[in-house]
């Protein structure tokens, strides 16, 4: 049979802790009452939508911060990579906007003039950064439109999808590209574009110089001969001055158009196949 008399120690300890706790609780209750700050409910709701792993992949300190950024700073809603599509849908559902559907886009470097094909007129000595080089007149490549291969795009790529080849040319691995578009902004020569993954025909040149000028500095530069445009009947490739430009809104089915190019500027690539491999 248990003794009915509870030991004094239990009573005192319970009382002391209890009373301390009570005092503390009261203090906090008062603080909560008088120092309360109203928070945006939407931020909390959005935080709920996010995975809550605070990984920082979105560039914010954590999920809560990202939620705040969406509400207060109009941050893009598709930054949460771990959450993927599900999270995106949840966020969009909460905010009442439509999730962007459509084909996945990957980055493409529109220059094929690597060091073996494009001429250098001078030797560059300075910071290994395209933007810095462009400010003092480029990296010595005679083509003022070509890829300098100093890797500003590769450095800004969050998933290391861009490689600088040994011949100093930036190349995107379509399989790794998440389509964030950071490299597009980073390139000082506007050489990188976002193209739908399924497109196969690309023109790897952005030189607007006239044909004879281009011929002088690059073996694979577009000389504006117009043959490809004729071959596709102006559907999918158009001329911009002396430069042929792929219009990615119109799919080109017949890849043989590449053979019409005397400079081999047009290349055929299957982004999807590359992804699969």
């Amino acid at each position: 049979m248990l003794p009915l008399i509870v030991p004094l120690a239990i009573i005192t300890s319970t009382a002391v802790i209890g009373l301390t706790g009570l005092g503390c609780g009261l203090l906090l209750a008062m603080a909560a009452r008088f120092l309360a700050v109203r928070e945006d409910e939407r931020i909390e709701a959005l935080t709920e939508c996010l995975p809550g792993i605070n990984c920082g992949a979105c560039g914010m300190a954590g999920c809560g911060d990202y939620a705040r950024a969406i509400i207060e700073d109009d941050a893009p809603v598709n930054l949460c990579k771990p959450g993927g599509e599900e999270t995106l849908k949840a966020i969009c559902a909460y905010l009442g906007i439509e999730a962007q559907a459509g084909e996945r886009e990957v980055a493409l470097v529109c220059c094929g003039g690597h060091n073996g094909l494009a001429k250098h007129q001078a030797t560059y000595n300075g910071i290994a950064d395209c933007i810095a080089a462009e400010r003092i007149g480029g990296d010595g490549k005679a083509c003022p439109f070509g890829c300098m291969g100093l890797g500003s795009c590769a450095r800004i790529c969050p998933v290391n999808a861009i490689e600088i080849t040994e011949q100093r040319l930036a190349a995107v691995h379509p399989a790794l590209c998440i389509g964030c578009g950071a490299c597009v902004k980073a390139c000082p020569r506007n050489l990188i574009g976002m193209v739908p993954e399924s497109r196969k025909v690309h023109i790897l040149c952005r030189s607007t110089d006239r044909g004879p000028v281009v011929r002088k500095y690059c073996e694979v530069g577009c000389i504006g001969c117009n043959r490809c445009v004729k071959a596709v009947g102006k559907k999918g490739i158009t001329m911009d001055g002396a430069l042929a430009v792929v219009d990615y809104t119109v799919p080109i089915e017949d890849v043989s158009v590449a053979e019409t190019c005397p400079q081999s500027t047009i290349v055929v690539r299957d982004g999807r196949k590359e992804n699969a491999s």
Partner: protein
Amino acid sequence: MKTRAAPYRCAGGLHPVYHKSLTAAAATIPLELPSTLVISLAQHLGAPARPLVKKNETVGRGQPLAEPAGFISAWIHAPTSGKIKAIDEQWTAAGRRATVITMESDGEDRWADGYPQPPLPADADRKQQIDRVAAAGIVGMGGAGFPTHVKLSPPPEKAIDTLIINGAECEPYLTADQRMMVEDADRLRQGIDRIRRLLGTPAVRIAIEDNKPDAVKAIQQALSSLDGDVEVMVLPSAYPQGAEKQLIYSVTGREVPSGGLPMDVGTLVENVGTTLAVADALDSGLPLTERVMTATGDALSQPANLRVRIGTPFDKIIEHCGGTKTPPAKVVCGGPMMGTALPSLAAGVCKTTSGLLLMPQDTVHFFESMACIRCGRCVNYCPMRLMPCTLSEGGEAEDDELLEEYRILDCIECGSCAYVCPAHRPMVQHMKNSKARIALIRRERELTKQRTS
């Protein structure tokens, strides 16, 4: 008129090897007319000019080729008579691409109708005179290329009390200004008098570094007839003594506020060449179609001071100077401290081209990307009292907050930091790069502010 030493000393102060003896005593020789001229439409600060001529058009000397495309922009005139061959994008002497007019000289050097214009008397209307300066396409010929007529018309609340003629020429190798002061001192006096009257007779200070005693003497003689508050200021030879802000401080003790203009402290600085161009435009009615420059460097056979037409291709100049002694490894447009390295020699002389420097292989400095060892020399020598070491590191890390905190936009890109850096870091390139980025960020911030308000 008095001559005295400059009363103040600015921060920094390098003593590079000057190499001026190559050309300091060489009289200016006019360069023969080249057959082809390459005229950039971005020879000045601000918007590139808009072309007025078409391909195959025939033009006379002095005929406007392009008109200003904004308030801060300038006219560009045909340097000689001939035919327009092409208008397209090319590399320019500024080290970037711009629209360039290529013309072929017909060898007659015939003036266009109405040129040269009738001279304007000294008591002509002020606005008329300033319009003439603008129409002559005059820009700051020291290097910055700021349109001179804009400088000459300060807003009424910013009265100019001191006119400083910049004859410091602190860049090593260059002697064009020195020769102009020695040879054209009388015309310089006319120019000074013209500019002074346009500004309401401020005090005039002619600032010359003490390594050009011949120029000091010539100016003293020529200017003795000028009345009023005119003084020749002899500056200690130190780089960058001739930089605008440093010069103003050395002469007047005033600091141009950060982000401000010389007129904010009541001063106006004109380069010697610009002053002569103003005299030409007002007294002889000549538009700016030629300038004096120094062709020099250890790779050049016969270094010389030359009077060249704007647009003269650099390879023609080299040819005229007897070609090269050794193959040049680097060709610099301007002086070695602030000039631009040229990727090719096809570009032509600009209004701001004060020199052409051909460097042989063994004198070419090579930047290595080594870590900063914090020796503090750059801090010691920065004429703007910045902390270049921190700025270049911040630039590498793209830490924009830090860059703004350490006031990167105050950097004048004089190159003192890179010159003394034992780690051979490309400091100036870091500065240029970061400055451009910060300026962009600021502009975007302003835009958002405007949009939200």
